[in-house]
């Protein structure tokens, strides 16, 4: 049994590194970290200020991560969620609690390199305490077949003066089916930025619904979406911000590049129920910018190379 776990661990770490993860940090005791394959925790490490508790649940793992009051983590928390088999279902339930005046950055990699028919359900609850800050960077690698259904859901509450920023990125491989459902509620002077950057190919389908509710006075939030779609890929983006608190500021910003037979739909929703709140939006869907394309071609790049540079820039 131990031999199997060791092998899974080594394989996952190899993919983790290949998808841009820092395997050195994953193996170091100075970093809080957690590696999960399917429903098994292969390794985890808590540190002085960050405590990780896990338990097995049906098809997955439930984890609670607490950043202690006043603790500002110099090192990011490294998380690796993966499934090595070709088929299966993984459910990850996380509860992140950043206590008052604490700070932590999470670098999460979700890796399904051999996926043919995999469902990954991520259900996250985030509580950011007064004047605390949490950054959550999530990079996915879904393999090359597109046989992945990813259902990430986050509900975050940010207390007075707190900050919660998250990013969801897929730049290489197939996206498969993705249904992002994020909602952040902000208290007084709290801030949030939700970013998703996804490259859809073949028959990938991406739904991104991200909302920031500006409850508190002087709270502010930005929902930013960047997508590039080619072949027959489809996307539906709903970025939403609601200004409730006095002098709250919200902005929804969506840019999508479509190529071939791809289809994109963007619906920025801005609502204000307070006359002193201000919410704005911008959305643009179109083909690759011709001027950018021509400029790069005048430097000797072929059309394909130029498109690649433009798309990678958009998703950076």
């Amino acid at each position, binding site marked *: 049994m131990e031999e199997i776990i060791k092998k899974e661990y080594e394989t996952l770490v190899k993919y983790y590194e290949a998808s841009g993860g820092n395997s050195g940090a994953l193996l170091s005791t100075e970093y809080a970290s957690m590696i999960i394959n399917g429903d098994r925790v292969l390794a985890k490490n808590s540190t002085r200020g960050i405590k990780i508790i896990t338990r097995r649940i049906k098809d997955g793992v439930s984890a609670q991560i607490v950043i202690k009051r006043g603790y500002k983590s110099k090192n990011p928390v490294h998380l690796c969620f993966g499934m090595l088999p070709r088929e299966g279902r993984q459910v990850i339930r996380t509860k992140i609690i950043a206590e008052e005046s604490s700070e932590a950055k999470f670098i999460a990699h979700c890796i399904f390199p051999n996926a043919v028919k995999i469902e990954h359900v991520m259900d996250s609850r985030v509580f950011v305490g007064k004047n605390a800050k949490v950054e959550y960077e999530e990079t996915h690698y879904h393999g090359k077949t597109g046989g992945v259904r990813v259902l990430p859901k986050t509900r975050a509450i940010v207390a007075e003066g707190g900050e919660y920023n998250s990013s969801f990125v897929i730049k290489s491989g197939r996206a498969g089916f993705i249904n992002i459902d994020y909602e952040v509620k902000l208290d007084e002077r709290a801030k949030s930025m939700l970013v998703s950057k996804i490259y859809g190919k073949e028959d990938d389908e991406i739904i991104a619904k991200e909302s920031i509710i500006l409850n508190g006075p002087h709270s502010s939030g930005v929902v930013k979406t960047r997508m590039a779609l080619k072949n027959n890929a489809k996307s539906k983006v709903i970025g939403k911000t609601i200004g409730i608190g006095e002098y709250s500021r919200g902005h929804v910003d969506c840019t999508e590049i479509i190529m071939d037979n791809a289809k994109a739909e963007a619906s920025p929703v801005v609502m204000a129920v307070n006359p002193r709140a201000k919410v704005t939006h911008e959305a643009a869907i179109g083909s690759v910018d011709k001027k*950018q394309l021509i400029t790069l071609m005048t430097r000797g790049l072929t059309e394909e190379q*130029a498109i690649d540079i*433009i798309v990678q820039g958009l998703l950076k």
Partner: protein
Amino acid sequence: MLEIRDLTVMRDGKPIVKNINLTIGKREVHIILGINGSGKTTLAHAIMGIYPSQGKIIFEGEDITNLPIWERARRGITLAFQEPARFEGLTVKEYLMLSSPEKNMSVLKEAVKTVGLPYNILFQEIGDNLSGGERKRIELASVLLMKPKLAILDEPDSGIDILSFSLISDVILKMKEMGSSVILITHSEEMINIGDKATIICGGKIVKSGDSKEIKKLFKYSPCPLKG
């Protein structure tokens, strides 16, 4: 170096450039003058392959009329746009690396210094954070780094403060020194002075070609003689 024979460029069914014949020599700075809408930019874009054209474009003895933009670029022709593009997510360093055969930082630092920009601009994104003037200088640095055989510069001096004119002139003269020929589209008298030859275009046709000093005088008093 470059020979343009009977070049006509149609846009939306109308001829914008009509039967142009022009020769650019090696290490020649050739100024293209003309009032707005005279066809200068269209001519520049046709040479680069951005617009299709009728007639012939011969570059170093090879007919390049039907070559795509990138193949012309790989043969040594490049163009700096009047309004350079913005690139979300691309830093100045990454952009300049694309044009530099030597992929090294010291060469990039030298290039931005030559166009009067600070070193730390290399780490900025080419977006709205940069002014139009800065983006034009970056475009110039990018062309300089390519060490092209023929650089087409479309109004590199527009939207740039007068003090920077001499800096741009120096960059163009440096290109010439390096062995490049330059086609320079400009309205500025100061820039005309650095030209070896000049051509006035009006209504898509060449009105006069010759020594730049003489053409400058003519252009000053009669910028578009065809219009009367």
